[in-house]
Every structure is written in structure tokens, then in C-alpha cells.
């Protein structure tokens, strides 16, 4: 399997974010919440505060490390929820067809027609702010593409010899779906989930920026941006570094997803002479 430069760049960035999140507790020089010291506020980057400090004198580097935990949790959990919903609906719709297919298709179209951030806002408004409701909101909004991919993969796999052979061998519908169809469409689903992680991180940042996500004083890249907004002329580093963190992690997920797609999908594989 050929994996290009993009894949490795994406993988490196993703691994970096994952390490930052997992090891935050050990490598962060300060506490993200408690080490607020107004005497140290708005200090530019130096040897002690690598990324400078924010308006309350908290270390931006520390808060970015802890923010990675939030972004990763949101990215992974929301994509797991998305994939489960999308695959379940798409696979059953493609396999059984009929009225169920029409219903799922209709639902997917409706979901695609609603801007997902607005929908997430509505869900958050009902559930209230906080991490769990953030996960639910993002998990419920972005499954439509996964659902479509799952449905179309199922439709094409259904006519494969081994699926029909499984029917003649007495496999039940569910057994066929789980042993024959699902494993064979994991590739595109995985790609969708990886690409979706990028947009989930963005959506989390947006919701936190709007004050609906992670509540202060706990750090999230989006809420760090909100806090830094008022100080952007005094302490641009407080906004720059969370912004860079969002940018690089989303770029990482997207490159990783693209790279996976290029290597998993034979039609997309670029032929080099």
C-alpha cells in the first residue's frame, strides 16, 4: 500500500494532537485553571510561558495541551456516534430497500438541508451547554454523509457473489450485514469518520466560541479564542496559538482522511509511471 507525503504529514499532526491530549497532565508546566495569576497576565511568549499568557495570567501552552483533550474527545466520540447512526440507517436502508429506504433517504435529505451548525445550536439550546450535550449535538448532526456512503456501498455489495452465496447458505439478514457487508465497506466509512473528525473539531470550536460548548474556566480551543478576542491587540498570542492548534489539528485529520482514502479506494489511487 502506497501512502503519500500528505498521509504522513496528516498522521504526524494527528499523533501530535493525540500525544498532547494524553500527556497533557504530565507535560504541561502549569495547571490550566488554577494557576491564574493576574500579575502575569498578557505576558508575551518567553522561556517560562512558551506561548505567552492570557488575560487572567494562565499559561496558553498548558491550556492548549488540555484543550487537545476536549477536541479529541469531541472529534472521536461524535464521529463514533455519527458512524453508528449513519451505518445502521444506511446499511439497513440499502439492504432492505422499500419504504424503509425511502424513509431513511428522506431523513438524510432533510438533515442535509439543515445547516449542521444551526441544528447543533438547536440541540445545545435544548440540552444546555457542557461536554455531554456537545457530544450528543455533534453526534446527531453529521451522520447524513456517512449514511449515504453506507447505503450506496451496501447497494453495490449486495450484488456481489459472496453476498448472494451467503443467502443461499442460509445466512440471516443481520448476519449477512455484519459478516459480509460491513467489513467490506469499512474503508470508506473509516475515511468519512476521519474527515468528519476535522469538521467536528471545527464545530466544537465554533460552539465553544459562541459560549455553548465547554464552559469557562475549563480550556477548549474555541473558548480560548473567545476570551482572547477582547485582547487581540494587547496579547495576540492568546488568540494566535489556539487558532493555530485548531488549524493544524483539522488539517491533520483532513490530510489523514485524504491519505486513507487514496490508499483504500482503488479508483482514487494515483498511478505513477
Amino acid at each position, binding site marked *: 500500500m502506497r501512502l503519500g507525503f500528505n498521509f504522513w504529514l496528516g498522521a504526524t499532526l494527528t499523533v501530535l494532537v493525540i500525544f498532547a491530549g494524553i500527556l497533557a497532565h504530565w507535560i504541561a508546566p502549569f495547571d490550566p485553571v488554577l494557576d491564574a495569576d493576574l500579575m502575569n497576565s498578557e505576558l508575551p511568549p518567553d522561556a517560562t510561558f512558551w506561548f505567552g499568557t492570557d488575560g487572567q495570567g494562565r499559561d496558553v501552552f498548558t491550556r492548549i495541551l488540555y484543550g487537545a483533550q476536549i477536541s479529541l474527545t469531541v472529534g472521536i466520540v461524535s464521529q463514533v456516534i455519527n458512524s453508528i447512526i449513519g451505518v445502521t440507517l444506511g446499511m439497513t436502508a440499502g439492504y432492505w430497500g422499500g419504504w424503509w429506504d425511502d424513509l431513511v433517504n428522506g431523513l438524510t435529505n432533510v438533515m442535509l438541508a439543515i445547516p449542521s451548525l444551526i441544528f447543533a445550536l438547536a440541540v445545545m439550546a435544548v440540552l444546555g451547554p457542557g461536554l455531554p450535550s456537545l457530544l450528543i449535538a455533534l453526534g446527531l448532526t453529521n451522520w447524513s454523509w456517512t449514511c449515504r456512503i453506507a447505503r450506496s456501498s451496501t447497494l453495490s455489495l449486495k450484488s456481489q*457473489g459472496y453476498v448472494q452465496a451467503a443467502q*443461499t447458505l*442460509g445466512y440471516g439478514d443481520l448476519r449477512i450485514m455484519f459478516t459480509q457487508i460491513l467489513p467490506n465497506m469499512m474503508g470508506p466509512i473509516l475515511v468519512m469518520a476521519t474527515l468528519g473528525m476535522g469538521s467536528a473539531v471545527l464545530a466544537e470550536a465554533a460552539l465553544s466560541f459562541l459560549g455553548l460548548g465547554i464552559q469557562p474556566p475549563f480550556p477548549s480551543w474555541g473558548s480560548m479564542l473567545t476570551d482572547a478576542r477582547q485582547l487581540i491587540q494587547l496579547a495576540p498570542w492568546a488568540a494566535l496559538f489556539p487558532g493555530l492548534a485548531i488549524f493544524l489539528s483539522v488539517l491533520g485529520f483532513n490530510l489523514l482522511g485524504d491519505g486513507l482514502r487514496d490508499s483504500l479506494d482503488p479508483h482514487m489511487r494515483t498511478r505513477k509511471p
Partner: protein
Amino acid sequence: MTTPLLDIRDLRLSVPLGRFALHPLLKGVSFQIMPGEAYGLVGESGSGKSVTSLAVMGLLKKPLAVSGGQILFKGQNLLALPKREMRRLRGNRIAMIFQEPMTALNPLSTVGRQIAEMFVLHQGKSWGEAEKLAVEALDNVRVPNPDRRVRNYPHQMSGGLRQRVMIAMALACSPDLLIADEPTTALDVTVQAEVLRLIKELCAARGTAVLFISHDLGVIASICQRVGVMYSGCLVEENETRALFASPRHEYTRGLLGALPRLGSRSEHGRQRLVDIDSIIADRSKLTESRFITPRELDGSQP
């Protein structure tokens, strides 16, 4: 006389054509298969062979639907059987192997696991036990080094080996009836002979009846006791294999046999053309009850 294992009575099947018209695909097909018997079904593409076998398996896809008749399996009408019961029969009492061994196995699991799944599914065995049985089953279909081969993925096997794996899966539960839908068409001739012998021997050993579908008369002759000839949704002739080849009664059968090259015929009679059945498929709606092939002309002078 014993009761037949499979008794197809006046099976009719049609596909809707436009809004109101029904286009018949099978026009009252009836035949019986005795327990342990090998029955051949021959006919050209589109004559209804495969559709008959799918109807027996209960796997007709919409818009195909049985519009009349009965399929009795051990006296049970399969067409009236609930889905769940039918599924229990499939793979267990009635099994099927296909033409395309290259695509008939799941590329993502080992052949051992796929065979073992049959035992787990139909006989309620544990996976550990089933995996041992899978090795045995591979050994039965004469795959060399079965204990190593069970860990192979389908892409590591040749077409002949894959077809053997399919046979192992189909015969895993010693079914009463094996439907073989052109099982050797995609294989080359030497492998074809081996696979045919394998099917013949294994089925004889288990007392499994075979419904063998093919357009290859040579293959049919080597494996079947009785043959039915299908043409345009009708069973036009049915006889013991030997008798059918010796004295075909129906004009179409004669045409089929005439289209077969015979070894040595050239030296005996000089160079002759094979009989050619006009290859353009006629408008099937015109070929109906009469059971003759009038819209299509037999060409050539052979019988």
C-alpha cells in the same frame, strides 16, 4: 416407487411488463428429483434454468414472482413456507454452488472461518469445534494441506480451489439437495473434470441429490442420470440421459445435440457444418404453448 425429494409441479413465474402485462418466464415447469439422484437441466441462456433454481431456493428478487404451481421438498410446499423456515432449509437441507468461484467468497475472512460459520449457523457448534470440522471439510474436498489452507484468504487460492471451498461450504451440513448452477463454467477444462468428479463422488457418498444446471451437454452426460431440456420457459423434453442422447424426441433437443462437435465425426463423414440454431432470440411472447420452436428455424441438414 419412493416419493420424490423435490417435486416441482406446474411452476409458473412471470415478470411484469409495463403496467398491466405479465410476461411469463416459466410456463408450467414440472419435474421430480428422487433422493440421491443427479438431475440435469440444460438449455440456452434465458431458457429459465437459473430462475427455476432460484425459485427452489426462495431467492427470487422483485419483480420476479412465482405466479402459480408448487415446489414440494420432502412433501413440504416451499412456496408456502415462512421466511424463517425457508432460511433454515437453505444451506442446511438445500445448498447451492455458483458459476463464479472468484467472487463467491467473502474476500475479508479466511476460508476456514467461512466454512466453520456453516457449522455454527446450522448445527449450533462452538467456533472451536467448527474450525476443526472446517479442516475436515477441506480435506473432504481434497484440498491439499487443509490445516494450513483454512487460514488462507480467498485471494490466496486459485479458481479451482475456491470452487472446492464453495463445495465444502455447500456440503458442510450434508444437504439432501445440492443445486449446482453451472459450477464449472468458469474453470478450465482439467480443473473442470476434477471438480465434476468431486461433486459426483461427494454427493454419492452422502446420498445428496443434485440439480445440475448447465448448457454444456458433455458435462451433463458425465454426471446426471436424468436430463430435462428447457427452452423458453418450458421443459420441452425429459428422459434418462442415455436415452435422451441416443434418441432425442424434441426438435430443439435434436438441434442442441447437433450443435455439439463429436470426436471423430469429421473423419467419418468428411467435413460437415455443425447444426446451427438460429441464434437470434425470437420474440418470446410468440413462442408459447405449442412448445415448438417455429419462430426460430433450424438451419442445416443434420438430424
